[in-house]
């Protein structure tokens, strides 16, 4: 047997209009954590989907443990000992967590009947093992994206597979949960499991990976041991050029208050949140999963009802109970849950981009298609969206490129107050820089920005002020100068209350 557990040789995958993989060779050593890197749309997910039998490769060979195999569907991949955490959540929201985990392989008693008791026990055991505190009977749809992601991780682990593929598993996770995942990966590795790891977060890659393969435009760029590379080298391999600065923060003039939030509460999600947002300011929201940051911006944007509190825009109190009102008041929100609240999968890239700005392009009755074309194309090109053409359905774009289209949609509305919830989730380093500089530019034009991010460097690098949350309570507002990773983590995890000092220290 060769030293490789898995070899994919000369893999070609053609979609209509797109050659996603142009003869990729990919080799993975047994028992290692192997990173698969590349820009958005480079073909990482496609390559892995070919391995899982979700996509059928146009040509190429898969050699598993020395034998050539054909994998025709997900079931046969499972039988060959491969499991995968997909980039997009693949959950049945109307069913319980244990049903989701054992989907398609439910334990049976007397050959026919499903053994519900065992299913529940196995789930409990699995979740306990992975230190996840989730009720197995809870409906999947009631979980936050992050928790769903943790369940997906648990599910992938439960296969006891030889090879576990993880396609951007941390994109919806905060630091603590990511740490948790790394522990899980460590344990798997100790058991001799091979892991293929896809991520756009450089620090993770160098922390956990042994070897790195880089794709660009569906072609193999190179493959090397992690110890022979560093971040700059890796980035230039991925992007094909050097990147100057990740967080192009410009200090711009902070102007008048545009948004003032007073004692805002919404049910159980969060209580008593107050802050002010000024022109030219970027206010970062930091906190752990479930801290209630998403709910705050959703409430301001009129997606969920507020139960208490006041919101003032430009000094005038506003009562916003739907997103349409919010947009009219100059607000804009880039949502966290791209699949549920973001894209319209069957519509074209162009229609998705222009969706929030249709008023602007309608002269009462008729839409001005020409102007729509010019403007959408401008933004889409600016953000470097990789798509066959503008009439392609957005669902056939890579995850990161879908995100870019949503960013373009938000920017096209030309908002006074932009609220972005995990704006660079799943976006490659090159485009990340692009989005960061766009946000900074907006701020410098006198717009105000609220940015929720679970990536510490992003929060630290971009924000003028940082608001920290813990379990639905605001725990503080930190100035840029005073902020660092430790301070924020402290506020976010322990929930400093203003009148009472943390007593655990």
């Amino acid at each position, binding site marked *: 047997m060769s030293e490789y557990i898995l070899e994919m040789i000369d893999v070609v995958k053609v979609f209509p209009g797109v050659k996603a993989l142009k003869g990729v060779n990919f080799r993975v050593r047994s028992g290692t954590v192997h990173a698969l890197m590349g820009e958005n749309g480079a073909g990482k997910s496609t390559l892995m989907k070919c391995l899982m039998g979700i996509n059928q490769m146009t040509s190429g060979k898969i050699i598993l443990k020395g034998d050539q195999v054909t994998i025709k569907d997900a079931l046969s991949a499972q039988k060959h000992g491969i499991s995968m955490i997909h980039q997009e959540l693949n959950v*049945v929201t109307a069913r319980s967590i244990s049903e989701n985990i054992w989907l398609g392989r*439910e334990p049976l008693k007397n050959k026919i009947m499903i053994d519900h008791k065992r299913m529940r026990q196995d789930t409990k055991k699995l979740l306990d093992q992975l230190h996840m505190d989730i009720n197995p009977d809870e409906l999947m749809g009631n979980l936050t994206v992050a928790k769903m992601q943790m369940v997906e991780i648990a599910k992938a682990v439960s296969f006891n597979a030889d090879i576990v593929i993880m396609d951007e598993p941390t994109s919806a996770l905060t630091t603590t949960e990511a740490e948790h995942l790394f522990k899980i990966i460590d344990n798997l590795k100790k058991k001799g499991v091979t892991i293929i790891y896809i991520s756009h977060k450089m620090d993770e890659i160098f922390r956990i990976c042994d070897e790195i393969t880089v794709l660009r435009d569906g072609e193999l760029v190179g493959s090397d041991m992690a110890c022979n590379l560093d971040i700059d080298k890796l980035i230039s391999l991925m992007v094909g050029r050097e990147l100057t600065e990740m967080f192009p923060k410009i200090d711009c003039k902070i102007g008048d208050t545009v948004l003032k939030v007073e004692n805002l509460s919404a049910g159980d999600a969060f209580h008593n949140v107050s802050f002010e947002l000024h022109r030219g300011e970027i206010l970062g929201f930091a906190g752990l999963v479930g801290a209630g940051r998403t709910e705050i911006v959703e409430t301001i944007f009129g997606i969920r009802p507020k139960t208490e509190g006041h919101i003032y825009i430009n000094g005038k109190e506003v009562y916003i109970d739907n997103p349409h009102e919010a947009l009219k008041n100059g607000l804009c929100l880039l949502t966290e849950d791209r699949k549920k609240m973001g894209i319209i999968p069957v519509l074209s890239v162009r229609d998705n981009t222009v969706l929030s700005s249709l008023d602007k392009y309608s002269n009462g009755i008729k839409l001005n298609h020409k102007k729509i074309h010019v403007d959408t194309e401008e933004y889409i090109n600016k953000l470097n969206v990789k798509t066959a053409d503008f009439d392609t359905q957005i669902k056939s774009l890579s995850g990161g490129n879908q995100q870019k289209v949503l960013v373009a949609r938000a920017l096209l509305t030309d908002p006074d107050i932009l609220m972005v919830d995990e704006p660079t989730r799943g976006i490659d380093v090159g485009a990340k820089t692009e989005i960061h500089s766009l946000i900074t530019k907006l701020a410098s034009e006198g717009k105000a920005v609220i940015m929720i991010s679970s990536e510490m460097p992003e929060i630290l690098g971009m924000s003028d002020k940082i608001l920290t949350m813990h379990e639905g309570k605001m725990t503080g507002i930190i100035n840029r100068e005073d902020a660092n990773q430790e301070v924020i983590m402290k506020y976010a995890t322990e929930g400093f209350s203003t009148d009472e000092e943390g007593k655990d220290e």
Partner: protein
Amino acid sequence: MNRTSDLKKLASKNSIYIVLIFLIVVVTIASPKFLTIGNIINIFTTESIKGLLALGVAFCILSKGIDLSLGSIVALSAVVSASLIQDPTYSAQMFKGLDMPIGIGLPVAIIAGILAGTIFGVVNGALIAYTKIPPFIATLGSMVVARGLAMLYTNAYPIPMLKKPFKTVGQGNILGIPNLLIILIIFAIFAWFLLNHTKFGKNVYAIGGNDVAARVAGIKVKKNIILVYTWSSFCAAVAGVLLAARTGSGIATLGLNYELDAIAAATIGGVSHNGGVGRIGGVIAGILILGVVNNGLLLLGVSPYIQQIVKGLIIVGAVVFDMRKNAKTA
């Protein structure tokens, strides 16, 4: 507080039963004849044929499909089984001189009827699974074809004079409980078992809820889709044979538009057309709601035109109430 909120949750989860009970109370007050054993049994027997269809189509809707062919399958199965079990002394018998001893003839007629209908389900399922055409179209096609075949087979003439033992299947009773009702109960229990205690059931929910997730999880989506439509047509085929036995004749116009009532019953019972959500208990409640409304209007002697109007309003009202309850707690 916890207890009252639990109670609320329970009520909201079961609000369709509340609607049913409410309707029963209203009708009982309006007509004292309603709550008699005879009448209750009547409601059940009357609705049992459509009930079988609703149990079948519920699976299709759960898997995010639909089955429009059920009414036509009822007709086809009815005429096929009826044609094989006519009284041989009847001069216009369809197959002249056919007279199998009842021990052979009865099973043959029943099985032939069920097979003739169930084949359509297999074809429907295969079409939907393999060619990916919308279930609406596939089953619309089958609806037209099956009805046409039934017409062609009988030349639109009724097939009367069925043998007595066959009629007993649909008209008889065991300890006062009509056979039809017994069969409906058996099917309901079986459907409930399928959905809640077998892999097939879980697969149906998953396919309806998120077919990509189901495929990615290694579920054989195609096989399960075929099974779903086979099941629904099987229910309809059984219903067709029973209807022939109950009315003592097979006619190609039987079961016209029954599928609409069946789909309505399932929908009223909370089976969502977005797939993946619904329970057998709800379907049964949906059937009974329709049955109680029909029966109540009949007992009150409401004019047929107004009957329709009231029926439409009640159906919508019941579902609105159901949704409102859900919305409140969500």
